Each structure stands twice: as structure tokens, then as C-alpha cells.
């Protein structure tokens, strides 16, 4: 399995801080989620980290077994 992690307000939309998903292309994984959540995760201001590394190019991501994909909305500061 792979894991999606939701930070900030995305956690509320997702109903929890993380979710186990089957590996595969990120597009296919998002298609299994509630549409409101999927749209929010793809927002322009949401950054993505894969296994703790920020990703700059979000096209073509394929989740491997054990991957962790984090969705990071704009920070609200310390």
C-alpha cells in the first residue's frame, strides 16, 4: 500500500490526517477519492512532497509500494 498525508484544512476535507491507498498513478489514486477532496488536493497553492521531498513537477507521479505523498496547503505561520 501507499499513503496520502493531508495537512492543514485538507485534513478536515479528507476526514483524517492520512489515508492508505493502492499504489499506482497519482491521477488514478485521486480518482478514487471524493471529488471535493480530489479537487482541493490539485489546487494551485497545494504543494506536494513525496517521501519527505518537495516535488516541483507534479505530472506523471506514480505511487510505488510504501510511498508517502503529502499534500501541503499554504502554511499559516508559526
Amino acid at each position: 500500500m501507499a499513503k496520502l498525508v493531508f495537512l492543514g484544512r485538507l485534513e478536515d476535507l479528507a476526514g483524517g490526517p492520512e489515508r492508505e491507498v493502492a499504489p499506482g498513478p497519482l491521477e488514478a489514486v485521486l480518482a478514487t477519492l471524493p471529488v471535493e477532496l480530489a479537487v482541493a488536493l490539485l489546487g494551485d497553492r497545494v504543494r506536494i512532497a513525496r517521501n519527505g521531498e518537495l516535488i516541483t513537477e507534479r505530472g506523471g507521479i506514480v505511487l510505488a509500494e510504501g510511498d508517502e505523498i503529502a499534500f501541503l496547503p499554504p502554511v499559516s505561520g508559526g
Partner: protein
Amino acid sequence: MAADVRLLADPFDPAAKLAAFTAAHPAAGGVVSFLGQVRSGEGVEALELRHYPPLTLPGMTALGQAVLARWALDGLLILHRHGQMTPGDPIVLVAAAARHRRDAFAAADFAMDHLKSDSWFWKRERRGGEWRWIEPRDQDHADLARWG
């Protein structure tokens, strides 16, 4: 010299931390500190800061290194809470010790601007029993832009 950068899950005593930091840097003529605390009297019952472990502390550590590279400091302390806090609780303590006062002021100011607008924390407040996520403030981005 490395910065002392910590992400804390539990309450801390800023006066004790600052006293220890100051005592550790006797050659510094001055220590500038910033203490941020949860405000009282605005209807906020609790505040929660969430972080993402793979990014948040590494980002703070990189910030500490950037501050040390930019100013001539004898020491730099960056402490930041995560988790739930209530009014009056300390959130963040930044302290810069330097031979020259201006370096210490600029370093603490810079560190705070970057912590507030550029570090991986998500904040929510509870008012009237309801939790609400806090969006970024434009002022934070304006503060950051001062440093070029």
C-alpha cells in the same frame, strides 16, 4: 558554531531557556530575543500547530544555518512548539547573541519573518468550541519581502 534549533511537543519555560542561552554566550555583548505567545482576551480558547515531520524541523534547521551565514553571531536559538496550546502559552522563542547589537536585532527579526511565513506549520484556533484553520496573512509575505 551551530544554531540550537528545536521543535517541541511540550510546554517550555522561555525565561529559563533564555537565561541558559545568555549564560552560554558570555562574550556576546547583547542578546535579542523574540517570544511569541498565544494571545489572551480575543476569544481564542486553544490554538493548535500542526507540522509535517519530514519537512518542518529540517526547514527550521536550514533557516538557522542561513541566519548564521548572514550575520556575525555568537549563538542562535530557535525553539518552536507544535501541538495544542492555550492562551498565555509560549509558541516560539528566537534568541540571537552577538558582539554587535545591530547583528542580533537583524538576525532575530529575519528568523521570525521566515518562521512566520516560510516554515511548515499549519495553525488552527478553537473559538466557541469550533476549530478553524488559519489562512496565511498578507502581512507575513510583506515582512518576508523586506529581506530581498
